[in-house]
């Protein structure tokens, strides 16, 4: 990909970051937001609630968990707990991104504001591309990239939400299948350890089973038992190999 010359203006770098949003990872992400619009509508959210959620939460797994909690009739506290559990990984992602992005002159508040754009896609793109951006232009570049991704997908989600009423039932069913298949594949690909794959298998089976008995707490129970179980098995195996 051609990038601007190192002496280019901040504006040029900002635009260059924004253009990186229109790439294959960006396209795949937007297909997931098309699915999310259908999911939010089916869950009974209004247009503005949906667009608001895209802007303030941004990370798609967190939003899907949030809508899942709303569908299960969870209280705001149980929902917050489930979303927080699903989003802890944002912390190490930011921890990894900050040293890539900051220069000695970067103010702290800039990093706090930009951290809001961190979610899987923008993070993967940033970790890949920031190396080719001069250090004092990296926050500008990421502001262009992250800001464009968030705004474009808020817009896209709103449009699909409005159009969904005129979709034939078959197309609507297809729209609602986008979220599960997108996450099933992308989550599998992003799991770094074998334990992550095991955790996925446990979670996908336990979720619906626990839902039958404790609908308001299904995500928390399935996530905690599935996750800890996968980690424990992974750990026991690693120890056996080491011995």
């Amino acid at each position, binding site marked *: 990909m051609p990038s601007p010359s190192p002496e280019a203006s901040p504006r040029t770098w900002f635009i260059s970051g924004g253009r990186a949003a229109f790439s294959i990872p960006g396209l795949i992400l937007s*297909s997931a937001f098309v699915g999310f619009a259908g999911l939010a509508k*089916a869950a009974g*959210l209004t247009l503005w609630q949906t667009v608001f959620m895209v802007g*303030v*939460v941004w990370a798609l*797994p*967190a939003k899907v968990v949030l809508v899942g909690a*709303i569908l299960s*009739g969870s209280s*705001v506290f149980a*929902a917050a707990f489930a*979303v*927080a*559990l*699903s*989003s802890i*990984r*944002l*912390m*190490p992602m*930011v*921890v990894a*991104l900050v*040293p890539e992005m900051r220069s000695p002159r970067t103010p*702290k508040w800039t*990093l*706090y504001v930009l*951290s809001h754009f*961190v979610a899987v896609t923008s993070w993967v793109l940033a970790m890949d591309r920031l190396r080719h951006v001069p250090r004092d232009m990296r926050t500008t570049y990421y502001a262009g990239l992250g800001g464009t991704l968030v705004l474009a997908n808020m817009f896209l989600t709103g449009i699909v939400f409005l159009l969904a009423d005129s979709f034939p039932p*078959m197309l*609507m*069913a*297809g729209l*609602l*299948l*986008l*979220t*599960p*298949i997108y*996450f099933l*594949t992308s989550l599998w*690909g992003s799991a770094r*350890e074998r334990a*992550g794959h095991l*955790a996925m*298998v*446990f*979670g*996908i*089976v*336990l*979720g*619906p089973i626990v*839902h039958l008995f404790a609908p308001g707490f299904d995500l928390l129970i*399935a*996530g*905690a038992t*599935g*996750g800890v179980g996968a*980690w424990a098995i992974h750990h026991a195996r690693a120890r056996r190999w080491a011995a």
Partner: protein
Amino acid sequence: MTFEAFDTWWWPYIFILVAGWLATDAWRFMGVYLGGRIAEDSEILVLVRCVATALVAAVIGNLIVFPSGELANTSLVLRVGAVAAGFAAYLIFRKRVLVGILVAEIVLLTGIALS
């Protein structure tokens, strides 16, 4: 205090802010605060990633088994079959997410058309 607990226009937005914005940006801000002080491969982070992964997977499972809207009018066998076919295609075609999505959608839509 569920999403539909209060009959006001602002309650859903408070719900989204507390359970959505606060529950995600708190982690992002903590990441900035901690800077480079945590190793990516520390054991506690492996555990954290496992729980987060299982939680999102539980949502996926629920969306397939207990779907909402138009998808609820399809049979469980068709939904599981479509997702399984998509996932298999994803694994076979060198982990291309787009291939997985396309195959799952084709199987689902063909199944609906034939029923």
